[in-house]
């Protein structure tokens, strides 16, 4: 209760009332802020309350409360994107009313009732323009994947470059296979981190300028499981475990690490497998020049139904050879 103001409410002069409202604005401000939900206790709320109290004072002096209602509508346009403007103004209004301890059905009480009704009806109206639909074309998953890819970049630039290319092939394969947009996005992302386990592979093996020996191959092959563990450890991207873990499975069951066969291999992994193999053949490698794309396609065809899902191989041929 703001006692000084309560006394003013009974004053005969409207101008005096207005001046007193202004004089007690700091107390009204604190009272109004205390009424607000935590979410709305913001810089904007403080500004709005102070401005409202000032408008109230003007209306008190003039007796014209339409002015205050109109101001509230303009304020809503300005701040509705960030706070509940009507909650804030409502809290300010009630704090002023409390302070004034209005007599029921007095002219000032009727004026406040009218402003309340105006605010309620304005709050119920849909806003003409709102950016409320927030689209995040890039989200936290992308950011986590990007961080992982940065780690891969630091381990071996060529592997990171290969991963980006595989992501691109996965995207095109997914489109060619007629998958939904969400699946295309999933596959593209899977392509980006399919080799993330290679951050655990010794650099000497990753960048060896020669073919690996048997022992090194064993170490290299661990990257699928290692990758799955990394991905599994980040809840946001745990759903990428299947393509990361199983992208080296063979369609005939002779792959690794789980020796899955045919449709038991997750579809995303079957798609990544083809994209990965094709790009590995045509990409730069320390120990050999890139293979001609036509020869790489021939290799895919040789592995059709044994190493690779035949449908995905066919799609890859279309992607590489068909032009629009």
């Amino acid at each position, binding site marked *: 209760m703001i006692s000084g103001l309560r006394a003013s409410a009974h004053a005969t002069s409207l101008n005096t009332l207005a001046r007193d409202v202004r004089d007690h604005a700091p107390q009204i401000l604190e009272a109004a802020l205390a009424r607000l939900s935590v979410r709305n206790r913001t810089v904007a709320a403080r500004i709005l309350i102070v401005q409202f109290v000032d408008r109230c004072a003007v209306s008190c002096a003039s007796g014209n409360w339409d002015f205050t209602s109109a101001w509230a509508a303009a304020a809503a346009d300005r701040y509705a994107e*960030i706070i509940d403007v009507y909650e804030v103004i409502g809290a300010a209004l009630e704090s002023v009313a409390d302070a004034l301890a209005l007599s029921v059905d007095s002219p000032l009480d009727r004026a406040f009732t009218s402003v309340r009704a105006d605010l309620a009806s304005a709050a119920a109206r849909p806003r003409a323009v709102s950016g409320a639909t927030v689209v995040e*074309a890039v989200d936290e998953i992308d950011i986590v994947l990007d961080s992982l890819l*940065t780690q891969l970049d630091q381990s071996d630039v060529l592997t990171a470059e290969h991963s980006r290319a595989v992501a691109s092939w996965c995207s095109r394969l997914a489109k060619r296979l007629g998958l939904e947009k969400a699946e295309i996005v999933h596959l593209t992302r899977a392509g980006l981190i399919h080799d993330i386990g290679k951050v655990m592979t010794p650099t000497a093996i990753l960048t060896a300028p020669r073919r690996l020996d048997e022992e090194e191959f064993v170490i290299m092959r661990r990257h699928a499981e290692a990758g799955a563990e990394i991905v599994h450890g980040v809840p946001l991207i745990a759903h990428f475990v299947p393509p990361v873990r199983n992208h080296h499975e063979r369609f005939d069951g002779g792959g690794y690490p789980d020796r899955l066969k045919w449709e038991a291999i997750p579809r995303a992994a079957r798609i990544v497998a083809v994209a990965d193999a094709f790009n590995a053949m045509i990409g730069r490698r320390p120990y050999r020049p*890139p293979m001609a794309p036509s020869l790489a396609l021939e290799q895919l065809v040789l592995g059709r139904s044994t190493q690779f899902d035949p449908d995905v191989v066919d799609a890859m041929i279309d992607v590489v050879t068909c032009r*629009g």
Partner: protein
Amino acid sequence: MDSALAAPVSLVVADEGYGKSTLIRDYLALRKIAHVRFTAGPEHALPSDLLRGIASAFGDIRPAMARSAAAASLKFGQIGAKGVARAWAREHLCDVDTVVVLDDLHHLMANAQCTDFITALIEESAPSVRWILALRDAAMFPVPRWLARDLVALPIEASELRVQPQEISAAFAAGGTLLTAAQAQLLYARTDGWPLGLTIALRSNDLDTITTRARVYDRVVDAALLRCSDAQRDRLFETAAAARFDKAFLAALECDAHFLEILVDSELIYALDGKSYAYFEPFRERLELRLEALPLKRHRRILDRSAAALERAGRWPEALALSVRAGDPQRVAALLDRVGFRALDRGETGAVGRALESLAEDVLMQHPTALGLKAALASIDEGYDVAEAWFNMAIQNARDGERRTLVLRYGLDLVRRGRPDVIELLEAETTRVESRANADGEAALWALLGTAYVAERRGENAREAASHALARLPGVHDPAVRARVLHQAAYVALDAGDYAAAKSLAERALARADEIFLYEVAARALSVLFNVAMLHEENVADARDALLRLEQAGRKAGNDALCLYAIVNAYSIEVDAGNLSALQRMNRELAEMQVLLTRMVSEGLLPAQALRAAWDGRFEHAYDMLAPGAEKMFDDDRIAYRWAEVAVYGAAAGKEPEARKAIALSRERVAGLDACHPLAVRATAYIALAEAMLGDDRAAAVSVAAARTSAAGLHRRVQSLVATVEAFLAFRAGGLESVVALAAQLDDLRRNDLGGVALLIGRLPLQPIAATALAAS
């Protein structure tokens, strides 16, 4: 025709020889109606070729159509014929006022994509475009739908084109022969009122000439062949293979003076536009059949000669197609060597692709330029790794004289992919003797090397390389090279912070690129202008304008990456400005795109998304979006600013240690910058904001004072931001006047297109600030 043309689409439907083309031509001439005419042929049976043919027909009315045809034709695989047509119509046919004649559309019947394309083109074009379609069967188009939508009046059909018995009598009478009613009726019955049959009967004055239509066509062709010498016969086949020709083309074929007379007298051809001629399709088809029946050697020689004449006339796609038909792979490869890249630059990807497909790999290996073309095609399709493999093989096998072109094409690919090894490739090329032979190649090489140095943060090398390129500019002949060199030099100047030079060079590049419809270079020049407007001039209106034009140019170039660049940066501007209606529209566009987190996206989109999240009070989310990639920004300016943003979001989210670390990292980078750089000033202002939220009032006051000093000579926008942060510091200290002052400053931010930042400041929480301030005190 008058009543038919009252509707947007007029259909003239009749079998061959009824004079559809003649009717339309005569009508338009009689009424003096300006029009665009496209005559379909067998070479337009694929939608991409059809699109290019129509674009070419629009010629001077819409020159941009031809230049964008290549890019548009690449989209058929992605968005289908209807999608391409819709986009294309919106781009080019929304403000045209003309009549478009599409003749001989029966050539397209076999390919539903072609008819889909035309249907969508018609339905999406502006009402001011009137279409006249001449075809043999209307079933290929959705006539009932068009009728229901009042797009078409009832078609003009054969019954209206038939010559009636009394007209037959009158025509013979005009030639001095009186027919009996029975004779006229007999002729009508034999010809079914077929005007061409009547014409031939009139010419021969022999009613028995007319038997079946096919026989009549054969007789006309045979008669023409009989009038020709052996050499002239070959010329007849050569011109028929080319379908249309002009006098220069005849000269290239070394036709004698009477040859054209024979063609005209035989009525095998008709004048297209006073300068060129085309064969009536039924006659051309018959000549083609006879050509196919010739002995292989002669057949091949005729096609080769025709292809050579087409090449000289600059009709490279047709030359390539004929060369493929002739069946000599070495000649196809040689032709590709000569014209392939020029054809590709003109957007003839389909023709080049088909020619390449006709070559076996062993032939390709002998022709590095053809290999390079294969690589360039793969690159256009974003198959960069495939492109790289082909480019490497091409360059390894390149002969002196062709290596430079291949290296430049490959280098451009590598630069765009941010590959550091491009520098080694290009530097080695600058030392090759070949490089001094050609100003075009040399300027292009140095300019490209300049941009490669920029990517590797070797500014001094970049400036030197750009200077080498510009020094060679006066000797450059190819306007495309000139435009590209200017753009690349502008890019280097922008990186060097020489904004005046960057702007001037980019404007010159844009002007050159616009002149020759080089949309991709135009878009890149506009990206430089956008950066100058935004970073240096802080002129949001100019920046918006540049981005709008950039997006349009990107679409015309068919380059999704450029479009994304424009959209992402426009989104960033509108979030900064707090422009909700623009954001609503862009949300829809972004929702449809698949956006990968590239550096460009990280620099443009992430901060916008973070700011947008901050309006909802999701400060931690904003922090999480920006903090992981802050050190990966392109240069120190951006890194400094990014850490400052991270500090603000961290402080607002109550992540005090993280915010303090971000402040320290931002300060570290700011220390190495020109204090008056707009991003350095903004970073310092944001540091002050973060410090204030953390309760470090004294540090905040020092920071904002430094920002104020540095902003003195800068634009109003930066000054407004600094003044707002100052007002925020006062606001925190309390007092109603400070609230009013901050409100006024937030309004000032809105006026300076920083309404989004005003929303951020408005959304900052009161409670944590007060609590932290209390703890600090």
